[in-house]
């Protein structure tokens, strides 16, 4: 019974995504176009600016939800999410640009994002195995360190543009595919959370010692969570790369990692709905605050942003959602 319902929901989303795709991108629906056309994103109902914001929103949701698996469910405080996103973005961009420049875009998309995820997961595995014995702030600092090292290395690889950045990356990401990805990732994470793996993660977060005494291998579970999370971050990076069409290491700084953490925290650590809500707020808020800039003439966005963080931590440390979930994401 439950099984049927979820299939129905997924189907509904696929249909909705395709419909959106049709309206906004106008390519995926037409099978003949599918083979050769590059997606033209500049048609349809809404302004390309809002379209671009929505695409970024989708990518941010994916990032935020994947981090929630670590931060919220397993209790691992990592500050290196931008690093995995960078690996995914650069991997996908390189593979598509150098090896599959003429392939139909859906081949590029599938191969690109899978490779991005796999490489990110592989590096995530190596980092995880070596550093997940650490806890708390120390883990945060080590992951931050790894992410910075990744960034500095990318900056010094000339093949991907070095300081100039990588240009002319095929832009095939469109709103439909991003939304579809977001939905798949949300459901994926939700189901992991609700299964025995998720219970083990939560147990480790709550009390690692007790989890140990329940026969749960904390390191193995943490590494699993880390690998899954970096895989998804890598895929998000791939979608990001092919949405921007341009990559520079300036994107993947510590600030980006912190933004994703902030999404989790504002929404409520430990809540999947919170991670989504947080991503929504932190994507839309900075854009909405541009209006403030029109009035004041100076950019207060980062200040408002920082203040929001501090105030939420002090006044509502459990975040906007607390531990609650929206109905469709609750475990029962």
């Amino acid at each position, binding site marked *: 019974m439950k*099984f049927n319902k*979820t299939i129905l929901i997924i189907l509904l989303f696929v249909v909705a995504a395709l419909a959106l795709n049709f309206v906004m991108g106008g390519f995926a629906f037409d099978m003949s176009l599918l083979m050769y056309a590059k997606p033209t994103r500049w048609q349809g109902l809404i302004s390309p600016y809002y379209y671009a914001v929505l695409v970024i929103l989708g990518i941010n949701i994916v990032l935020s939800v994947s981090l929630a698996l670590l931060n919220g469910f397993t209790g691992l405080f990592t500050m290196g999410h931008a690093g995995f996103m960078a690996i995914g973005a650069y991997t996908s961009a390189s593979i598509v640009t150098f090896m599959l420049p003429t392939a139909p875009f859906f081949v590029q998309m599938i191969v690109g994002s899978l490779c991005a995820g796999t490489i990110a997961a592989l590096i995530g595995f190596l980092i995880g195995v070596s550093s997940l014995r650490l806890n708390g702030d120390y883990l945060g600092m080590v992951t931050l360190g790894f992410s910075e090292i990744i960034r500095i290395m990318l900056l010094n690889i000339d093949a991907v543009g070095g300081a100039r950045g990588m240009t002319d990356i095929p832009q095939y990401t469109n709103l439909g595919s991003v939304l579809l990805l977001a939905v798949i990732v949300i459901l994926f994470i939700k189901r992991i959370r609700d*299964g*025995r*793996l998720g219970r083990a993660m939560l147990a480790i977060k*709550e009390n690692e010692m007790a989890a140990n*005494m*329940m*026969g749960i291998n904390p390191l193995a579970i943490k590494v699993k969570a880390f690998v899954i999370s970096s895989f998804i971050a890598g895929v998000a990076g791939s979608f990001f790369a092919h949405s921007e069409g341009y990559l520079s290491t300036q994107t993947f700084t510590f600030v980006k990692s912190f933004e994703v953490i902030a999404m989790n925290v504002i929404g409520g650590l430990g809540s999947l709905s919170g991670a989504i809500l947080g991503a929504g707020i932190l994507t839309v808020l900075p854009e909405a605050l541009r209006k403030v800039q029109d009035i004041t003439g100076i950019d207060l966005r980062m200040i408002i942003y920082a203040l929001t963080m501090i105030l939420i931590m002090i006044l509502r440390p459990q975040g906007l959602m607390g531990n609650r979930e929206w109905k469709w994401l609750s475990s029962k």
Partner: protein
Amino acid sequence: MAFLEIDNMSLEFGGVKACQNVSMKLEPGILYGLIGPNGAGKSTIFNVLTGIYPPTRGDVRLSDESLVGKKPFEIAQKGIGRTFQNIRLFKELTVLENVMSAFYSSSNSSITDMVFETGKFHAEEEEVKIKSLELLKVMGIDDLAAVPAGGLPYGKQRKLEIARALGLSPKLLLLDEPAAGLNPTETRELTDLIRKIQKDRNITVLLIEHDMGLVMKICEKIYVLVQGQLVCEGPADVVQNDKRVIEAYLGVDE
């Protein structure tokens, strides 16, 4: 042949001797007590048994297999379940989920099963749920299954910890002061429960307890630990009349 054997085990922390030459032999299906004044190293023995601290010297064997060097979760999987003196529940999980978490290592649905919610996944979840509810019923807290564990009253948290430990289907159950902080009625209730569980499941129980009455009443054999050393072992009447035990208690404890 003993089922669990602690063989001349010593544990030192940077020169401080927490346990010295402790030897114990536990037979299957018997309820043991471990008593001693505060700071005698009772919980430390539990921590060595469960692999949290590796012993400095000596050996610990479960069914003739050495546990030294094994990771805590491996030891747990081999069938040693425990509770904690200062309760360590998964506070934000529900009561039911707390117990279900103990079935982690005995179930085997994969990530794919979870993500696609396959039949196997549902069957296994269902089975674990039923078993967990049974355990809760045994402890008399099945009506609270959906409540977050952190919200339970103290006494019920103690019971839940035992139910969770039972989820491992342990051969050996280590209970660390299960009656601490309970009122006399609750203590009596718990005493009966422990005995009942031990008998019904025919498991070995090692019980640390401050409440002498409780220990003397239900334990078939009692070990007395003073300053990291076993000073006496035997049935209640032997222990009660042992000079060193009386000295230790009169001299040190309240």
